[in-house]
């Protein structure tokens, strides 16, 4: 490896001149927008972003201005509070599920290497005499389900010329019956089930089918969004599963016929056959936005381009039966102003602490007087590209019960 990676020099005279021509520019506040523009994102990306921004962050414009003003004046308006807290008095515990994906640079995959998502669960809880800390940690997702816990694991393997990563679920105490995979008849297929959300009795996942070209490169063939009950996932059996109604939860099951669908979906369906969409047929998933969960609806493309689909965030408020405690005790804009660079946040139902994802860390801050504390009480390092797929809270008497269970099914760090 003493030689450079490529036979061609990337650092050209042209690049050098470009840098030298920029030396007198004022420093940019952030390179992120410029770097993002370097990529050619499809219209679907912009559409999804637009809807996410509009819907998940209705005051985004105002917030951006506020953040800018705050940064320019040494964040004098930041809503931080220097508070003296005793973390052991906290009344909540947070069970966090994380999915680690290949980094953006890895997403395209090498010609032969496939990088699979990995999952882990952390229980962050007050611990007498030791403040607030990670009291249990382990691989897979440990999901509270009624009075017990279930475990979701991603199982990888190969069968014939196919490769797969499928999800297994079952009670943590008894274990699960590992599902099987049946070979496709259409050449080599790579089947991946990726968890987007887990909580209460639901799990939302994306089923991705990829194939390999003659030269071994990976191409994406289809992505399908699903919401299943944990019991449906456990009973699914061999994959790829047949798309039977009883194997998943439809929009209709959750929202009833009153669900307001995105305009694009109406248009797409109208263009296809002139009929109104049937909610039971619309694919949907649950994804994490900033400070809340959101319903993502798959918009079918024209019949002639069946493989081309886009997704958009539906203007639907997920009920507490799906995402319990999905509100922030401190407005998102206050958190973003106090902690520039914050990507996501959760606050405890008992209003005593916040968990903020920022710069590849999950930081725990005390909450007091309607604001967020100044100094993190705990910092948990995240893997690059690690995202939140589960946030479940225990309060009061349930805290010691969850600690005991999590330490039993995961590990005490």
């Amino acid at each position, binding site marked *: *490896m*003493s*030689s*450079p*990676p*490529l*036979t*061609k020099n*990337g*650092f050209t005279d042209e*690049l*050098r001149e470009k*840098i*030298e021509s*920029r*030396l007198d520019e004022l*420093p940019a506040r*952030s*390179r*992120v927008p410029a*770097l993002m523009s*370097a990529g050619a*994102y*499809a219209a679907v*990306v912009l559409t*999804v972003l637009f809807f*996410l921004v509009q819907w998940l962050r209705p005051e985004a414009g105002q917030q951006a201005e506020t953040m800018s003003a705050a940064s320019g004046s040494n964040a004098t308006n930041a809503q931080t509070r220097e508070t003296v807290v005793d973390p052991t008095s906290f009344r909540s515990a947070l069970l966090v599920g994380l999915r680690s*994906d*290949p*980094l*953006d*640079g*890895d997403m*395209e995959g*090498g*010609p*032969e*290497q496939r990088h699979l998502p990995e999952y882990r669960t952390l229980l962050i809880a007050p611990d007498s005499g030791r403040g607030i800390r990670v009291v249990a940690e382990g691989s897979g997702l440990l999901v509270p389900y009624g009075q017990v816990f279930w475990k979701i694991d991603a199982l990888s393997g190969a069968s014939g010329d196919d490769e797969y990563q499928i999800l297994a679920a079952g009670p943590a105490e008894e274990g699960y019956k590992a599902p099987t995979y049946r070979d496709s008849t259409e050449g080599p297929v790579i089947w991946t089930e*990726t968890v987007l959300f887990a909580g209460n009795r639901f799990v939302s996942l*994306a089923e991705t089918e990829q194939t390999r*070209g003659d030269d071994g*490169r990976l*191409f994406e063939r289809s*992505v399908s969004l699903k919401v299943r009950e944990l019991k449906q996932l456990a009973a699914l059996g061999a994959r790829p599963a047949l798309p039977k109604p009883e194997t998943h939860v439809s929009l209709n099951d959750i929202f009833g016929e009153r669900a307001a669908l995105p305009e694009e979906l109406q248009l797409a369906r109208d263009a296809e056959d002139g009929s109104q969409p049937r909610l039971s047929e619309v694919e949907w998933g649950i*994804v*994490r*936005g900033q400070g809340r969960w959101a319903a*993502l609806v*798959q918009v079918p493309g024209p019949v002639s381009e069946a*493989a*081309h*689909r886009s*997704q958009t965030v539906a203007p639907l408020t997920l009920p507490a039966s799906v995402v319990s405690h999905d509100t922030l005790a401190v407005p998102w804009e206050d958190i973003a102003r106090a902690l520039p660079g914050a*990507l996501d946040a959760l606050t405890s139902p008992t209003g005593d602490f916040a968990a903020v994802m920022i*710069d*590849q860390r999950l930081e725990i801050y005390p909450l007091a007087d309607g604001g967020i504390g100044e100094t993190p009480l705990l910092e948990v390092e995240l*893997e*690059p*590209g690690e*995202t939140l797929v589960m946030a479940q809270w225990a309060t009061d008497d349930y805290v010691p019960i969850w600690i005991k269970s999590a330490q039993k099914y995961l590990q005490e760090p």
Partner: protein
Amino acid sequence: MPTEANTESEYLRYIVDTTDKKTILHNLMTQYGNDVWNFAFSMTRKWEVADDITQDVFLKAYRHLHTFRSDSSLKTWLLAIARNTIKDYHKAAFIRKVTLVDFVQTKDARPSAEQEVIERFAVNEIWKQVLELPAKYREVLILYGHYQLSMKEIAQLLGVREGTVKSRLHQARLKIVQMRDRAEHERN
């Protein structure tokens, strides 16, 4: 006894005081331009992004020449700036991933441009395999194997413990061996 880093630091301080900053940057780019670009490319595998990151790195270095500290070599200092800039890039990717757009967008059924670049210009099979590694393993292997940084320097640069660096290096080597075995198996 002056270390290489100390000597560089003193030299840089001397020339910052006596020389036009633009000339210093010109010399830095001559000496380390390829190092920075190759690191950016290795970690993003995107030619245009490597160009962007390299520009950013040298502009940051230009603005912060006076902050260079003697406890690292110039090359390590520039690689640290590059690594932070790459992290910003991945952070942007992270934000996009939160919205799922990377995950669900339909991809064109053709080899990606960056894959074509790697296929066409990769200097040898080893580099091809290294570029296929997940980022956290690729990073330590490149810093150790190509840039010849010590475990300690890598640990400082990445903000992790030396034990973590050793473990990642071990995993990276294992993965390379597995990739070779697999390629060998497929050839047979």
